[in-house]
């Protein structure tokens, strides 16, 4: 399936972006943003994948066994955990906006400010 696998990341990015743009609720928007973010995870991991390889853990397989790229996994695994805390920051910003304006809808917020 050569390059077709990369189209999944394009799909995730485009669909998530569509959700962010058309969203009528900040909480909904934040989850869509997280879908966009996950497209980067999928892309990075797919770049590091190699057919017929094991995970880069050499506990019960000897060193020298073909293994996938450990660098990309390290990048993604830290970002998954940091991403959820940054998501919490976004959610609390949404709550703050809700406190100030009484709504979670970006459209209403726009008219309030303008």
């Amino acid at each position, binding site marked *: *399936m050569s390059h077709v*696998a990369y189209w*999944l990341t394009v*799909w*995730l990015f485009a*669909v*998530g972006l*569509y*959700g962010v743009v058309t969203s*009528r*609720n900040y*909480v*909904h928007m*934040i*989850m*869509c943003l*997280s*879908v966009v973010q*996950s497209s980067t*995870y*999928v892309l990075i*991991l*797919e770049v590091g*994948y190699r*057919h*017929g*390889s*094991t*995970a*880069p*853990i050499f506990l019960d397989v000897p060193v020298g066994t073909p*293994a*996938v790229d450990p660098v990309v*996994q*390290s990048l*993604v*695994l830290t970002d*998954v*955990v940091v*991403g*959820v805390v940054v*998501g*919490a920051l976004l*959610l*609390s910003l*949404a*709550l703050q906006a*809700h*406190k100030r*304006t*009484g*709504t*979670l809808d970006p459209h*209403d917020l726009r008219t309030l400010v303008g």
Partner: protein
Amino acid sequence: MNAAGAVQIVVMTLVAGFALGVVLTREPLHQAIVFALFGLVLGVLFLVVQAPDVALSQIVVGAVAWPAMVLFTLAKARERERRNGRGRR
């Protein structure tokens, strides 16, 4: 096409489908559940591309931490709206 490739195609299709589901579910409370499922399937995808470390953090984060935070946020927002009389000014 071997078995691993077939499993990868199936899981990738599931991820694509659930991503669409997350975006199209407009009610945030329902969306949180679809989003948790999306996180789980994403974790399975990481597992089938031989990334168990990432899968471990993704499954816990996607199925526990994200939905919990979203539910707490919605609970707070709803309670506040009820208290302020339908919220909108």
